[in-house]
């Protein structure tokens, strides 16, 4: 079976599930959610750096999607639509968090440095890599929200500029510029750790 045929069948399946979910079929909606909840969760986690927040925001995004299904005109895929809800919710959540003051809880169990342990060949190299990973994590976290969101979607989730633009509700050009600016900012902040590599 060709890829286009598989894609067409998947689209028809999604259309069918969306129709059922619009009539209040919880099982159909849960099946739709199953296809995207994991990716959404990891994107939200990359933005919030907090497991509980990521889980709550993903649940909330799916609940909102269920509530607003009748407004879903199927101009984009269900995944993109829910992704957009989740990213908007997360950005609003983080903006509110900034107003309320810095967040106290940072889930260290999801630290990049921890995740990448064992990759470096030597103790010295290992130490340098850990340092760079930690600094990179800090630098990404300190990016302004729109730049951070673009970076997470494109680099961590592997989305194209077009897909990221749909999720973020902006143009491809905007995503392209944000990626360029984000990299410039990261490069400037990590310069001391990158020299001599």
């Amino acid at each position, binding site marked *: 079976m060709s890829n286009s045929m598989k894609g067409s069948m998947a689209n028809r399946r999604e259309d069918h599930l969306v129709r059922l979910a619009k009539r209040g079929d919880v099982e159909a909606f849960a099946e739709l959610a199953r296809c995207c909840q994991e990716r959404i969760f990891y994107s939200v986690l990359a933005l919030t750096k907090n497991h509980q927040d990521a889980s709550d925001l993903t649940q909330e995004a799916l609940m909102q999607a269920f*509530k607003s299904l009748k407004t879903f005109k199927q101009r984009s895929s269900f995944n993109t639509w829910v992704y957009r809800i989740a990213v908007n919710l997360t950005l609003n959540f983080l903006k509110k968090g900034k107003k309320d003051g810095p967040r106290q809880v940072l889930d260290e169990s999801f630290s990049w440095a921890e995740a990448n342990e064992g990759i470096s060949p030597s103790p010295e190299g290992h130490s340098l890599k850990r340092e760079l990973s930690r600094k990179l994590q800090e630098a990404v976290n300190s990016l302004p929200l729109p730049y951070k969101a673009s970076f997470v979607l494109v680099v961590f989730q592997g989305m194209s500029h077009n897909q990221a633009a749909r999720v973020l509700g902006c143009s491809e050009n905007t995503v392209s510029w944000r990626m360029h600016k984000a990299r410039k900012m990261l490069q400037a902040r990590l310069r001391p750790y990158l020299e001599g590599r």
Partner: protein
Amino acid sequence: MKCRTIEKWLSDRIDGELSERKIKALDAHLERCPSCRSYAATLEIIQDEARSVQKPEVGPFYWEKFTSKLKADLSSQKQGKRLERPFVKRWRWAGAGAALTLLIVVGLYFLLFFEKPAPAVYVFSYEESLDQIYQEIGRDPELENMFNLVVLASIGESLEESEWQDSAGFQGSPLLWENFSEEELKLIESEIKKEEKIEEESNES
């Protein structure tokens, strides 16, 4: 080509968003620009570092629990709120409204254009009734004779009754005299006396 443009193209190339034509121009620039080559190398390191991040692991039953909670929340929300209804149910009220409107229109049509005249009530007049009775009786001479006798007897009874009523009514009513003035009463008394006198004279003669 300006280095600022090249830096933007470098970012696009890392994301796989740069056209073939621009990639050729970019490579040509990098060959002769050490500053941009250095920047390109830095971006590669950042990209590799970021891409090498492994997904944080979640518990083995994490997604099962997540889905169960989601379903429970959805079900409770569904009970609290009416969702979009199927086509038939959604248009049920519209159908009922259309039927009601049709009923009203048809009713008005019949009421306005098919109004029947009120049934004429034929009332026999007293004279017409008598005429019919006379005609019926006139066909049978014996019946006519009997009818005439009955009518004559009835007239006789009526006369007697009227005479009695006249005398009884005139003299018997206790309130009759109350309605006359003193002068009228004197006039009536004098007239009665005159009549009595005339009657006495006629009796004597």
